[in-house]
């Protein structure tokens, strides 16, 4: 591929989730040149994998549609997918950035007609659905994927199936010869919108996520509730595909815990309150949600959402950090053991399904080796980005702090202006 033109007046945005999209677009709509790099094959990030937003219960893809329309309509933004930053040299106003572009095995000629997928039989884990389902090894990441281009999974490259996919494409879009490429860029400022990842629930041993099929994570639950998800929006539990009606939500799964994450992930309380309404949506009055919490952090305007959920007879709250989960061998129900600390009431209750409200940690950690952040970046004790020593690189969105979408966008918009300040300073000093 040909490297896009970039100068010290160009802003590099790393990460194509809602924060990266925002940072890139806000700068571009101020007339700035932006290069937006995304590690995965499509833009949208984790918000695209959410079913609904709190508190409006609206659909994240609605905002994504607008942002994609903004991208399509704006020549100032150059998008590079399947691309990662491997090195950053130089300093504020003049960075030399090295990018690694992984092969998609499908070129710009792709029309998304889908013939390659028809020609391929073998399947791979569906990343969009957090591996809860499988997709063909030639796939469109999801219905709204941008760029609207298929991906050939490396596993079938060099196999008969790979050739079949190639043969099936009338447009010469399948290019099995693609190799990993390295691209060098010069940019004036860098915005790290590298986002978050769900905390690894396997590490929370007392909850047996690794041992019990019906203990899942909050991000997986989003996919279950989504009509575009693996269960077509039905809340079917993994062990036996039965509809889950009596669901437990465990807060601070990893967060606020010095054994795992020191910080509070901020979004999980609201996310769970939202998800209790998925249960209502699916089961009506027949559903039952129980929220096990330490503090309900429904901050600022969100308080009324909390108050409305409290009025919902199908939702109850227990002030308790669940001690451990066992499994009822006969029916596969998780059994929660703990104590309601409001007055000390011991419980041992069965639920159909347990949803762990897993915490947020930075997707890109403090590791300095390849793929990590440049040494110049300042991170806090949980590896969130506070800024850079030379003041030319900025964290945006969930890479900078555990933030909900609204605040992530706010943060990204601010980061966008800070980047513009940098390149304007460079321009004016050069002019002088």
């Amino acid at each position, binding site marked *: 591929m040909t490297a896009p033109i970039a100068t010290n007046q160009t802003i590099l945005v790393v990460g194509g989730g809602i924060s990266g999209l925002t940072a890139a677009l*806000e700068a571009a*709509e*101020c007339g700035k040149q932006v290069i937006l790099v995304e590690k995965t094959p499509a833009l949208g990030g984790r918000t695209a994998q959410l079913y609904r*937003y709190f508190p*409006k219960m*609206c*659909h994240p*893809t*609605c*905002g994504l*549609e*607008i*942002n994609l*329309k*903004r991208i399509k*309509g*704006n020549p100032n933004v150059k998008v590079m997918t399947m691309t990662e930053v491997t090195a950053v040299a130089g300093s504020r106003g003049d960075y030399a950035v090295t990018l690694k572009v992984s092969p998609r095995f499908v070129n710009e*000629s792709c*029309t998304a*007609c889908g013939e390659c997928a028809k020609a391929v039989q073998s399947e791979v884990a569906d990343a969009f659905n957090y591996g809860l389902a499988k997709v063909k090894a030639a796939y469109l990441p999801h*219905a*709204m994927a941008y760029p*609207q281009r298929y991906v050939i999974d490396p596993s079938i490259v060099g196999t008969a199936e790979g050739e079949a996919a190639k043969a099936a494409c*009338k*447009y010469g879009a399948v290019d099995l010869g693609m190799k990993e490429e390295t691209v060098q860029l010069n940019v004036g400022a860098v915005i790290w919108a590298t986002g978050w990842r769900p905390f690894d629930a396997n590490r929370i041993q007392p909850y047996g996520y690794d041992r019990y099929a019906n203990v899942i994570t909050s991000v997986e639950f989003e996919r279950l509730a989504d*009509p*575009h998800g693996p269960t077509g929006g039905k809340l079917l539990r993994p062990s036996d595909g039965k509809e889950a009606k009596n669901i437990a939500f465990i807060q601070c799964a990893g967060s606020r815990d010095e054994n795992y994450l*020191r*910080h*509070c*992930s901020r979004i999980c309380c609201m996310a769970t309150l939202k998800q209790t309404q998925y249960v209502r949506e699916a089961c009506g009055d027949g559903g039952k949600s129980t929220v096990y919490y330490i*503090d309900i*952090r429904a*901050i*600022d*305007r*969100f*308080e*009324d959402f909390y*108050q409305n959920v409290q009025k919902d007879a199908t939702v109850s709250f227990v*002030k308790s950090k669940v001690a451990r989960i066992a499994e009822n061998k006969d029916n596969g129900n998780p059994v929660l053991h703990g104590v309601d600390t*409001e*007055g*000390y009431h011991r419980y041992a209750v069965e639920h159909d399904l347990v949803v762990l409200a897993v915490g947020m940690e930075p997707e890109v950690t403090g590791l300095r080796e390849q793929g990590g952040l440049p040494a110049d970046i300042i991170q*806090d*004790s*949980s590896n969130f980005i506070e800024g850079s020593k030379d003041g030319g690189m900025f964290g945006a969105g969930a890479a900078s*702090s555990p933030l909900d*979408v*609204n*605040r992530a966008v*706010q*943060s990204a*918009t*601010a980061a*966008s*202006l*800070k980047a513009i*300040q940098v390149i304007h300073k460079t321009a*004016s000093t050069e002019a002088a």
Partner: protein
Amino acid sequence: MADNKFAAYICSGCGIGDVLNVGALEKIAQKEGKMAIVKNHPFLCNAEGVQLIKDDIANEGVTHLCIAACSRRAKAEAFSFPTVAVSRANLREGVLWVIAEGADHDEVRQEMAEDYVRMGCAEVKKMTLPGGNLKESSSKRILVVGGGMSGMTAALAAADAGYETVVVEKSGELGGFANKLLKRVPFSGPYAEPQPTGAANMTARVSHHPLIKVHLNSTLAETAGAPGRFNAKIAQESGAVAEELVGAIVQATGFTTYDIAKLPELGGGQANVVDQAGLEAMAKAANGGAIKRADGKEVKSVVFVQCAGQRDASGVHLPYCSGHCCATSIKQAMYFKDQNPDVDTVVIYQDLRVPGMGEDFYRSAQQKGVIFTKGKAGRVTGGDNCKVEFRDLILDEDTSAEADLVVLATGQVPSAGVNLDDWTATVTAAESGDETAKAKKIELQKTSVLNLTYRQGPDVPQFKYGFADSHFICFPYETRRTGIYAAGPVRRPMDMLQAQEDATGAALKAIQAVENAARGRAAHPRAWDLSFPKARLEGCTQCKRCTVECPFGAIDEDEKRFPLFNEERCRRCGTCMGACPVRVISFENYSCDTVGSQIKAVNIPDEFEEKPRILILACENDAYPALDMAGIQRITYSAYVRAIPVRCLGSVNTIWITDALNSGYDGVMMMGCKKGDDYQCHFVKGSEMAHYRMSKIGDTLKQLGLEPERVQTQEVAITDNARVARLIDEYVAQINEIGLSPMKGFG
């Protein structure tokens, strides 16, 4: 300008050519579409296909082209020809992928494709290329209202980016609420100790910044104009009025603290019961020494009562949580502990809300010996020996704590100016001669912050609880007053860290607004849009529907009550166009004609063919993508529908409906986004307005002798791929039920 030359390009790729008779489509484009050039290509979106079109533009002088291929949502970059008018006939997602396979559908599938080609040609014929409207004289200065932390941050952010900035502060000094604080909570690691507020340094930077001009003791007497040309009249202490021409406005007017006098049950108004602001004052007075009460007694024990007059479900006090108060009380408890570890400090909370790294600040306070008790305060009595009665929620008992001082953590009340609902009601009443309303209007006017000369009222609309927030989660700066952006606690309850971030973001949006205005472009969400509404005033009946219904207050009225368009305020939704009963309002590339001609272009079979025709008018942001994605997922629906994307249901003019029914359509489906309190419409009331207007169309239907079912409005979400197909098939069934339209052949 050169003569128009029309061309149509039909793609036979992605299987279009295999399933559809492309030759027939070409003929239609020539004969019915009257296209001067008609070409087909097996792979139109590749370099060669695109070059074919470029060459015709360059060599054949093509000015208008219809691309009959995939959806307008696909291949946008390949099919971007900025110098010509372009329409897209959606043969792939709109026909090929949604109509069931097999020979018995060949006929209806082909008819559908032919209609879309007809529509595409008809549309482009009525389009002109938007020229934009460059403003030479456009101002790029930024006005910041409010000189607190948010305001100063916004001013510095804009000025540091090279934009001249004007700050208007009503008090005699910059710094705002931060001046009242001894210290702030930490913004960065290790999140253990209170930090200096930094207000003084910031004040100094603002005062000395070459690009920043500050008006102290000043308020906005009047704000007229639009982005790029706001004229702000600034009333000064002296009584003089300064005028500033600015391009955009950041409203950072902050908050006031909830009046503790309203909390008598919590000791509000009694001795030694203070709010957090009061405690800051005491701490500043102590100046590093022991904190003393009003009566001079050294405070040896203090109780903090969280959520005082907040999170109140009873409707008496603030229903919301102000977010910052838990961390603030922690900070204030540290004031005591750091000065003297033996002071007893107890924080009574219901949920301790210190998100993110605030957890470390909480730990630090515990480390210092601050006691946290989960409880709900009942009665507080002040005096020499204060008493807080509360329910200990852990020990499950009613108990009480005695202390020298009680601090109530009260909430933030936004200073957002006039509530526009209130305003509109008052104005309407006043106009109908209500005297008290007239008086109230004057009182309201006094409370205004911006004093906008907009028809829709003097301030920005408020979202909830008086906060001037955006309605959208993905777009916190999506203002309903183009070029005016609220920032800080006036937008939403928040702490200083968030306020400064927010102000920086708002400054960017202000910069964007002045840049867009200068380019004559729209603002978010149609930032790329160069079209803007034009009105043939000679046809106007001064009915004021456009001025009333414009969701963005873009249209004023001149003395003769003709609409005065402020295109820089306009968001290009077309609501005015939909509202206009005499259809004098239009955009270059979107008008009553561009849509009307498409409707008329559809070939209506006579009733004996028993092929109903159903018109779909689909919101281009939610419903049309849903239809599109139904195609991408190969979900099939009836071939009897003809879908036209509209910018917003609010732009739908009833003439389209009546024309459609007159010309023999059997039904009309309007698909818009969610309405109501949690509306999805980025043009505020489009969907709602459509429902309203269609409720009115009943009479027209009666006159035509048609059943009300022939017009249907649906709320469709972007995720409704499968549902939208179901809705279509159900409606087709329903239409077959009530029978085909009697109007056929009369159109």
